[in-house]
């Protein structure tokens, strides 16, 4: 029911939306809850377990009950695929109706009910409740054993759950961002506004974050004055001043988590409340706010009292009733009963009466309290029952004079307040019980640099909140060396807390604690009876507080019931652990920006466009894209292309872009000594103009990477790494230089991106290079020299990863595309051409050259047959550890080559090796295949792998079994080098 003259919604801007397909109207500024309540809707959906009717309980983000599904605008095609009942196709389930603002075209639907919220077939669960109490599934469905997975679990899963996930990809635009400030103020109620004002006037950089669209907090909900102004006016004036002072006010922003180093997570609703959203506008944003200090002014949550039937639509927090009345101009009922144990509840009755709403009576749990007002007052009263199948029709009040049933459509309940301490618990802090306010308050040392103020600290009066906000902000500012001017705190209501604890009412019937997970007082008592007396055990047994609201309204009441049941005081019983996020954050928002190409950077070589123009399928190598092969006309299978490209290198000349290999420029008088220490081999004695293969170990003695080092000058080397390990090697070198050898005069930087480098390999490689540089290459194997193709300063290396006469020519990257095109053209004119990763792999397997398939982190130099490269005359990283007995055991799995006995036999990577004739089972496993290919050179499959005592078993037969691909091949164990074992072709 709309109340004229009240509310901050814009009555001049009507908004049309729909609920369960029916057109509804509200005003700009309404939430779904306020608009529907204004239209007289009380039934919003059904509950999780018993499918009980659910309505609105609160007016904020703590809402456990009024959960709805909200459609998201999307392609019509999605609608069809999803079979969505909400228009739009993609939707968000479990949206709190008390938070979601309405906008034109918004489609809202009820959830957890079929066919409708008023007639829900699964409401049969409610009749079965005697059998479905807490923990029922731990005790039932025990037999027959096989039924659990086949019958029970699928059935339970279908019946359980809150809302439904859409079946389409979530393409909602979302974003993540960072913000920075001196002082973060969390919550813009009276304490928060005052804290922000104190910070701003001191000249600090302040962020004020609030969950709602409008700063003011409860000042917008109450008929209270601040500094002689109506509270809402004071809030508006203060907000305006804050903006003028440069405070960043982040509305619709919930601070959801507290993390190390003063980092706070915050979820901002950016476009969810708009009907016309500009292209690229995110629906929401996940902020990481970095603050030097923070003041938590998150307020408090009003708690319910547990009495039978307290979950019916129409039963609400007394404070929420005030909020709907004053902030939205809506009365949630026409005839309201108020039930409370504290003075705050009185304001609800007074405000309702002043607005002309009939107050059917006030049930005050305490005796001897004076409650002025033109309505019946029952003292020492309890509500003991409610009626109304789909919404409240009456309450039964028991008081000193007897019991009476009072017709009403709304019951406003106040059981006192729980300070919103949650964020103070995110770094393992535990709240402490404050007997004077009968509530848990934050541990002051819970989060370094953050203090609570206002109601979050248990300061429930308005002036108390204002003073507390100013005081805590001042302390934070002074800790940051700001000079804080003295400011008077405005006058406001300063009533002390008057409350007599009342957690539950002793009466027959189900009294509800957790409205989202359907947990009753009886469930908690049952947990205690089952000896689950720890609050953490009770929580898991009953699921109390484990729903999306994390039990904000119910936790303290539940543990009070547990305390009562176990005969312990509340502080001893303690709370469960509050964890981030404070309110639900879509997973898609946490991963915002990570879809498609946003997942990782793409590194493109200078030959990328050329490769694409030749139709090369690109594959990932680290972050790089490299051509897999270059299909020629008439080829229908990659193997045809690969075999052809291998043939180029073996018979004429092939060219490949190898720019992706890591290159590190190492300089300084101690460069040689440094490399001696990081490589197993000796590099300080390498002559200028020469290149050497090197092996780098981890500190634990296993091989980290391999590559070459070229001596560029007396005090300069260029080392190469594998593509995938470039970053790891750079990190390792930094570690060695800074931690293990800090005195060495050596410096290094990545040169990977500076140079485009191309391999030229094959019997005609020398001819091609000669043609390119206008002179013979004139290089011995493992030599290098400067060259200047086209007048550009470059480098030519005589190294080979193919086993053929091979060169690598490097030029500054700006000339890469141009040089590549020239190389490819020349190679083709010589009867060769470019080769991709597939051919490169075949060529290196034929030669037994390892890659990270073999350098997999568990292999030692001994395993690889590189024991001879462990220089004995010097110390190097990993030397001692590599000499451990277990790492040089001849029985270890060591590198071998594998060749099928029958040329048609298949070899696959990942296959396991067994003794010939042995059963292919785990206990007989003797090794595995790391790399495999079809060798066009040898005309059969070949592989590299690790085999127990491998090198000693050359000539033996082993059984190769790939269970996944159904391969079973008898192989001969060979040397890993299949082709040109003496290296004559490579050395030329």
């Amino acid at each position: 029911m709309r109340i004229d003259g009240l509310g901050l919604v814009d009555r001049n801007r009507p908004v049309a939306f729909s609920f369960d397909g029916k057109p509804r109207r509200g005003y700009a500024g309404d939430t779904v809850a306020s608009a529907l309540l204004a239209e007289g809707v009380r039934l919003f959906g059904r509950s999780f377990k018993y499918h009980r009717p659910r309505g609105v309980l609160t007016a904020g983000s703590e809402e456990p009950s009024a959960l709805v599904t909200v459609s998201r605008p999307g392609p019509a095609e999605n609608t069809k695929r999803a079979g969505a009942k909400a228009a739009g196709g993609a939707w968000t389930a479990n949206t709190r109706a008390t938070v979601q603002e309405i906008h034109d075209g918004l489609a809202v639907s009820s959830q957890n009910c079929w066919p409708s919220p008023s007639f829900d077939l699964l409401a049969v669960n409610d009749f079965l409740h005697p059998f479905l109490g807490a923990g029922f599934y731990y005790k039932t469905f025990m037999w027959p054993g096989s039924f659990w997975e086949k019958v029970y679990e699928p059935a339970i899963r279908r019946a359980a759950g809150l809302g439904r996930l859409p079946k389409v990809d979530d393409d909602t635009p979302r974003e993540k961002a960072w913000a920075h400030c001196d002082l973060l103020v969390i919550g813009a109620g009276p304490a928060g506004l005052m804290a922000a004002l104190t910070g701003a006037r001191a000249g600090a950089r302040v962020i004020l974050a609030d969950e709602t669209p409008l700063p003011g907090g409860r000042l917008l909900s109450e008929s209270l004055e601040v500094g002689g102004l109506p509270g809402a006016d004071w809030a508006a004036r203060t907000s305006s001043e804050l903006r003028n002072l440069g405070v960043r006010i982040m509305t619709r922003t919930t601070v959801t988590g507290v993390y190390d180093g003063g980092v706070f997570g915050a979820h901002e609703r950016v476009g969810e409340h708009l009907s016309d959203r500009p292209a690229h506008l995110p629906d929401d944003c996940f902020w990481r706010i970095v603050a030097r200090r923070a003041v938590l002014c998150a307020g408090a949550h009003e708690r319910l009292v547990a009495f039978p039937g307290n979950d019916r639509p129409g039963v609400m927090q007394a404070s929420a009733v005030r909020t709907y009345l004053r902030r939205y101009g809506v009365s949630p009922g026409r005839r309201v009963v108020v039930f409370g144990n504290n003075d705050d509840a009185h304001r609800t009755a007074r405000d309702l009466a002043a607005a002309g709403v009939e107050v059917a009576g006030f049930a005050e749990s305490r005796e001897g309290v004076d409650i002025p007002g033109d309505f019946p007052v029952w003292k020492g009263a309890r509500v003991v029952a409610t009626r109304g199948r789909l919404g409240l029709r009456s309450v039964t009040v028991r008081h000193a004079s007897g019991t009476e049933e009072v017709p009403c459509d709304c019951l406003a309940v106040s059981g006192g307040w729980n300070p919103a301490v949650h964020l103070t618990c995110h770094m393992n802090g535990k709240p402490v019980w404050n007997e004077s306010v009968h509530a848990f308050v934050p541990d002051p040392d819970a989060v370094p640099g953050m203090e609570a103020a206002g109601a979050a600290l248990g300061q429930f009066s308005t002036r108390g909140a204002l003073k507390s906000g100013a005081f805590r902000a001042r302390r934070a500012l002074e800790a940051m060396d700001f000079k804080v001017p003295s400011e008077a705190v405005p006058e406001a209501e300063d009533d002390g807390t008057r409350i007599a604890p009342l957690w539950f009412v002793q009466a027959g019937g189900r009294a509800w604690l957790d409205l989202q997970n359907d947990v009753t007082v009886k469930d908690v008592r049952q947990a205690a009876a089952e000896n689950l007396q720890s609050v953490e055990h009770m929580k898991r047994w009953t699921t109390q507080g484990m729903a999306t609201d994390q039990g904000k309204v119910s936790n303290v009441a539940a543990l009070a019931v547990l305390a009562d049941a176990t005969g312990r005081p509340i502080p001893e019983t303690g709370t469960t652990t509050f964890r981030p996020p404070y309110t639900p954050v879509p997973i898609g928002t946490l991963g915002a920006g990570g879809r498609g190409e946003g997942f990782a950077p793409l590194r493109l070589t200078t030959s990328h466009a050329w490769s694409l123009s030749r139709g090369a399928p690109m594959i990932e190598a680290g972050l790089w894209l490299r051509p897999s092969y270059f299909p020629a006309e008439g080829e229908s299978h990659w193997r045809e292309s690969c075999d052809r490209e291998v043939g180029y290198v073996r018979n004429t000349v092939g060219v490949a872009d190898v720019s992706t290999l890591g290159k590190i420029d190492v300089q300084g008088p101690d460069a040689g000594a440094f490399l001696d220490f990081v490589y197993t081999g000796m590099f300080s004695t390498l002559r200028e103009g020469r290149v050497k293969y090197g092996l780098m170990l981890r500190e634990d003695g296993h091989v980290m990477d391999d590559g070459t080092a070229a001596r560029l000058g007396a005090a300069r080397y260029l080392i190469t790494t594998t593509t995938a390990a470039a970053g790891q090697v750079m990190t390792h070198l930094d570690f060695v230089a800074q931690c293990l050898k800090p005195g060495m005069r050596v410096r290094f930087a990545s040169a990977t991106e500076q140079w485009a480098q191309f391999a030229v390999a094959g019997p005609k490689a020398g001819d091609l290079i000669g043609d390119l540089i206008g002179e013979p290459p004139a290089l011995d194997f493992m030599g290098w020299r400067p060259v200047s193709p086209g007048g550009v300063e470059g480098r030519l290396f005589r190294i080979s990863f193919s086993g053929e006469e091979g060169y690598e020519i490097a030029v500054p990257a700006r000339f890469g595309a141009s040089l590549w095109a020239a190389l490819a053209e020349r190679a083709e004119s010589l009867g060769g051409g470019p080769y991709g990763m597939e051919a490169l792999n075949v060529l290196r397997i034929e030669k037994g050259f390892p890659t990270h398939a073999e350098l997999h982190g568990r292999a030692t130099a001994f395993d690889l047959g590189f024991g001879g490269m462990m220089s004995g005359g010097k110390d190097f990283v990993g030397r001692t550890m590599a000499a451990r007995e277990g790492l040089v055991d001849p029985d270890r799995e060591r590198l071998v080559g594998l060749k099928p006995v029958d040329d048609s036999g298949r070899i696959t990577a990942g296959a396991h090796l067994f003794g010939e004739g042995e059963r292919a089972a785990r206990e007989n496993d003797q090794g595995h295949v790391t790399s495999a290919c079809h060798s066009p050179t040898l005309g059969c499959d070949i592989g590299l792998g690790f085999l127990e005592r491998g090198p000693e078993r050359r000539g033996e037969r082993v059984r190769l079994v790939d269970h996944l691909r159904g391969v079973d091949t008898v192989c001969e164990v060979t040397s890993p080098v299949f082709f040109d074992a003496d290296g004559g072709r490579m050395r030329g």
Partner: protein
Amino acid sequence: MVELVAESPGGNPPPIEIGGARADWITAETLLWLSNWDDAGASAVAEAMGVGMPGPGEVAEAPGGRLAWVGLDQALWIGAAAAAPVGVAAMDQGDAWSLVRLSGPDVPDVLARLIPVDPAEIVPGRVVRTELKHMQSILIGCPDGAVDVAVFRSMAGTLARDLEEAMSSVAARRMI
């Protein structure tokens, strides 16, 4: 003999201008990486470049260019052609980086979507090395709120994409 043609990182991409932010691809005549291991090296740098090795996070302005700190005992000369000083590690990095100048009133908001560092720290005379989305980057403060951004050459396309996404998002917020 071959004729080689130079190509810009990313192949001469056009500037990006969305809302109140603009990204222009820029080139520097020289990017020279320098790193010293002793005081003599620092003096050699000061003599050759006209400014000494900058402290952490600092950019030293010299007549021919800027010398920006890029790591422990490391700096990057951005500016006119310069001979490498003797007695220090030096390497041409002119082809290793893609450089973009970000300008316009929305620059801080655009950067807030890409880097964890406070954009207010990136003012003239200051440089930060940080992660830009998923890429390591160098960001140098410039006059009038502009910021020079450098990422590896191979990632120029990703930089353009990430900038465009952040700029679009900020611009969309301006419209509501």
